[in-house]
């Protein structure tokens, strides 16, 4: 019955739930979905992680490569991030070249990582003007059920935190490169940026902030993806993007920032615990 009602009166169905102060999936407005995280799940990659927030699942794999740095920036390595949204993850996507939303998500993720300054690209330099690391960070969405950017950032950061760089020796005379994979050093990661998505909905003259929206909620709130994405790193804002949805009032923004701050701590804990467990396991 409820399913038919949802099809015939989609907006009324959604409003009826919201007027009872509950969301269609049974969550309270500010309640977030469970997070499950696993690191180093792909053995072929140099570092990897899988995250599941509710149904949204994203896998990240990092591949290391060596390259010559750009002439204008000889002391800087490369961090290349890419988000893939295959048709597998949602019926919205078709096979073919990357869709607009995949490109927008890629830009958002790359911007957040660059703005948070969590990775100093100078750490990736090996020999001045000759050799630097390239980190290819590929994120593939397996199931897209909203709040995609949150999940992408989380798996990317978990992967980066477990990444170790092998020792490279470079002979300046013969230009010979030798990589010693048995000696590895950890990559320096400064803080842990955490993105939090929100959907904003106008319901009977009041604005409602829905934390961690599902893809159905994002659609009902009229956005392509989430309406508001805020990102914290070490308690400092490093990005706040708002697109579409209802217009954001000052109270709503404060509310959202508060939730984002709390979530940043929660996610940090999840990542730390997961990595600690992983390290205990390999040191056994």
């Amino acid at each position, binding site marked *: 019955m409820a399913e038919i009602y949802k099809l015939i009166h989609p907006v009324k169905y959604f409003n009826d739930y919201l007027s009872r102060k509950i969301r269609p999936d049974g969550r309270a407005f500010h309640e977030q979905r469970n997070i499950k995280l696993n690191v180093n799940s792909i053995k072929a990659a140099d570092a990897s992680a899988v995250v599941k927030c509710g149904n949204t699942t994203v896998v990240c794999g990092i591949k290391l490569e060596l390259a010559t740095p750009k002439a204008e920036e000889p002391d800087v390595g490369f961090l290349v991030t890419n988000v893939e949204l295959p048709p597998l993850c949602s019926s919205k996507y078709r096979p073919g070249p990357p869709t607009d939303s995949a490109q927008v998500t890629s830009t958002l993720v790359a911007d957040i990582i660059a*703005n948070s300054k969590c990775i100093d690209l100078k750490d990736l330099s090996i020999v001045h003007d000759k050799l630097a690391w390239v980190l290819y960070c590929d994120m593939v969405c397996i199931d897209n059920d909203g709040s995609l950017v949150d999940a992408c950032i989380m798996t990317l950061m978990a992967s980066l935190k477990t990444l170790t760089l092998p020792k490279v020796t470079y002979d300046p005379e013969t230009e010979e490169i030798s990589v010693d994979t048995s000696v590895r050093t950890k990559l320096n990661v400064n803080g842990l940026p955490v993105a939090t998505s929100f959907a904003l909905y106008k319901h009977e003259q009041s604005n409602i902030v829905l934390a961690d929206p599902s893809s159905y909620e994002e659609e009902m709130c009229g956005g392509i993806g989430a309406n508001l994405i805020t990102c914290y790193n070490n308690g*400092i*804002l*490093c*990005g706040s993007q*708002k*697109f*579409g949805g209802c*217009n*954001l009032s000052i109270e709503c923004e404060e509310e959202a920032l508060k939730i984002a701050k709390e979530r940043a701590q929660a996610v940090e804990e999840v990542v730390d615990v997961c990595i600690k467990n992983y390290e205990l396991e390999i040191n056994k």
Partner: protein
Amino acid sequence: MGSDNTDLKDFKLRPMKCECNYLSKSDGSAILSQGQTVALVSVNGPLDIKMTNQSIEKATLEVLFSSKGGKPAIGDRYKEHVIRQTCETAILGSLYPRTGITVTIQEMEDYGGFLACCINCTCLALLNAGLSMRHTFAAVACAIDELGDIQLDPAPAQLAAARATMTFVFDSRNKTLVCGFTEGSFSEDAHSEALERCRSASQLVFDFYKDIVSKYSYVIG
């Protein structure tokens, strides 16, 4: 009124110049310069589109951004996304079901605050095309430097020295935030102060819209 004026004096934007109906074949077009930053926008619609893209509820909005070099880049998709989402909230799309509205933005010169200029120019072109809108919208860019000072509508030199840049888009009715995006890292206080400053400065842009529109229309101007 007097006190309002003195308040606004603190909010200086670079001089804006605009010409509407710049293109002869578009339904609406505008070229806008804010300082040395220049954008050209053409709006066509409501027009016929393919059956597969039609929506029975509202007009389908298509935004195309072409950079000066003409080469498409991933960053351009992001700009299109920002402009599409802004227009989507502003245009009364339900008045034009099963049709399409195309907005084409051409980059002319980028001397800081380019996306804000594009958004303002888009609003003028939409007004010029005579599309029904819920509200007009105005974008204001600002930069926060190392000392925490906020500079509205920054020039390239100020952008280079900035630790964060932000752009906010406001609606004309309640001046609530329609769209906003930031670069760099900053504190919450800096963010809210920048937001308030831009909110006040957006009035200058709305006044400018009024000046421009009243030149060719007595009714809506």
